[in-house]
């Protein structure tokens, strides 16, 4: 049981790192970025290609972060002409990008599912309260919690964060006081994408890298965003940790109902709090 809870935290923090960018971009700019899962998968493949040593792992993190940053800027620029159009247009554009990206990854890395080794030293296990638990997952919980803390502190406690939150709340008002909110959008998009590719590298030793993983994590991230409420960092954190536990403890307790539990939680939240746990009021 303890192992399941710990695992829920590992999955939860990883999901948070992935989903927070999606949530902010959607909440702030009304851009539905369906290419977010492809960013994660890109990171996972970079990790798979370089994994095995600490040098490789850190290099993968660096490369993935840089690539994520660049991809975020490009995505932001691509969606810019569509900002006044409907969600459907944006969804189509980013879905198209996701498909192209998925196909390119397939050409480069092949469609053999890759399994990724944790960096040396973290590939063993340690005993937690009498039960062996993989060291890497413990490290992931720590790193994920740290990242979550940093993102939370930046968004909730700094001037830059205030600007981001203000843009989520009322874009036109922010523009009216003289801030070019296109820049805010590019920045948030870039950082969000960076976090997504980083999550891909970090998640590699658990989830591996395979075609189709992009869609799987995108759905998880969308569930997190909907449960947590659009544009809310607190919501994304709560949603991620909740889904992490549902995925882990739920699977252990009710193995046959695991997939229902995930969407059951989603449905429940939608019925009780239609705007998500921490969503802004209408």
């Amino acid at each position, binding site marked *: *049981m303890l*192992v*399941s809870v710990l*695992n829920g935290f590992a*999955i939860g923090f990883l999901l948070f790192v992935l989903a927070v960018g999606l949530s902010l971009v959607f909440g702030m700019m009304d851009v539905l970025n369906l290419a977010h899962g492809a960013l994660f998968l890109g990171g996972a493949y970079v990790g798979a290609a370089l994994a095995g040593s600490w040098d490789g792992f850190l290099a993968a993190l660096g490369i993935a972060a840089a690539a994520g940053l660049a991809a975020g800027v490009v995505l932001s620029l691509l969606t810019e002409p569509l900002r006044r159009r409907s969600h459907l247009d944006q969804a189509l554009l980013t879905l198209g990008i996701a498909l192209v990206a998925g196909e390119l990854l397939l050409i480069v890395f*092949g*469609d*053999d*599912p*890759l*399994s990724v*080794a944790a960096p040396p030293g973290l*590939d*063993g*296990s340690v*005993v937690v309260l009498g*039960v*062996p*638990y*993989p060291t*890497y997952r413990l490290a992931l919980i720590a790193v994920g919690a740290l990242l979550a803390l940093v993102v939370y502190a930046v968004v909730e406690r700094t001037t830059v964060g205030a600007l981001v939150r203000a843009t989520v709340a009322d874009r036109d008002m922010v523009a009216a006081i003289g801030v070019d909110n296109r820049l805010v959008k590019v920045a948030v998009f870039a950082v969000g994408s960076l976090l997504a590719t980083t999550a891909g590298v970090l998640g590699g030793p*658990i*989830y*591996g890298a*395979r075609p*189709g993983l992009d869609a*799987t994590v995108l759905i998880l991230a969308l569930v997190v965003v909907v449960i947590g409420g659009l544009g809310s960092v607190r919501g994304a954190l709560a949603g991620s940790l909740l889904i992490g536990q549902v995925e*882990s403890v739920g*699977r*252990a307790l009710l*193995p046959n109902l*695991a997939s229902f539990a995930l969407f059951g939680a989603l449905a429940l939240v939608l019925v009780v709090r239609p705007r998500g746990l921490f969503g802004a009021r209408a």
Partner: protein
Amino acid sequence: MITDQTLTRRRLLRLFGAAATLPVVSACGSSVGGGSGAGGGGGGGGTVKVGLVIPQSGVYAALGTDMQRAWDLWLEQHGSKLGDRTVQTVVADEGETPQTGVPAVQKVLQSAQVDVVVGIVNSATALGVRDVLAEAKKLLVVSNAGAADVTGKSRTPYIWRTSFVNGQISAAMGTHLAQSGFREGVYAIAPDYAAGTEVIAAFTKAFEAGGGKVVGQAKPPFGKTSDYQPFLTGIRASGAKATFCFFSGSEAIAFVRQYAQFGLAGTIPLYGSGFLTEGSVLPQQGDAALNVQTTLHYSDQLDNPNNRKFVEAFRAKYGAAPSCFSVQTYDAGNVLDRALRTAKSLDGDALAAALGGIGTIDDSPRGLWSFDGQSPRQNLYLRKVERRGDTLVNAIVKDLGPQQSQPA
């Protein structure tokens, strides 16, 4: 003069153009003629056209490589001949699913007009091409796909198999575990697809027949599970004395690694069907795979003269150890060679009749085997992952003796 010159140059260009198109045209002509000629000549001439349908892309691509290498090696060692006919091989990509595999078989039969098809990794593909082969009256030698139905319930005289039956391998493990002190409780886990179900069913039947008790069972979603923690927690909670599993490819890597990382390897020994630690997955599992025990009809560690020769030749040519997938395809060459010596023609009926009469194959790297129905009756070996120098190998622990093709 000047006009003359330009004219000549133009004429020259035209000549070049014509010269360039000529070979193309003639090549088209000859390939069309050649194709039909070989197809027609296959009946009584000195050639046999073989369609090697193996995965060159997708999750099974590594298996495809092992299979193609073994096929090429067999031909190289036997002067490119099956019987006394010169072999012409047409390779097609089976891909991952029947959606790609069935068209690949149709293609080699119809466009390339092959006489015999060899290969097929995916059982659904092997089942899906049944009618295609029956209609064409051509022989298929399956060199992997292990579904019982291929040569069982959906049997056709045109499909023979040189590999194994899923349940044949796991039934042997069931009997073995029941006799080795694990009767009180074994946990069984395999992906929720046809092969996984077959493997678990045959294992459970044999294990229970030996007086054993399966204390728990799980079916992780196939191809979608990479985090096995919830299942591992279930295994620990079940109080099982041992775990029996069936995974292959990246799932085998992830499962074996996590089984060790979550500390189960030290307390609940892991057993499985041989694919768990066969071929390219073993080096990636690393030390996590140590002491995992599996049953299979082959290991490159088998100590017999035919295998030593085969492994040496394979290593010399490709710089890698052969896998069971290699041996299965190598043996497809072997049985076809024997069949073609006696067959009166290359049609499916003649070849099937000839295959039925070849008796015991005495020079296979896997040891003695024979057709029992249309699948092998063969010895299964209990293997244990051990370190030899800097590589991991499936060391032979015990010969479990000859096993019938379809478990009772």
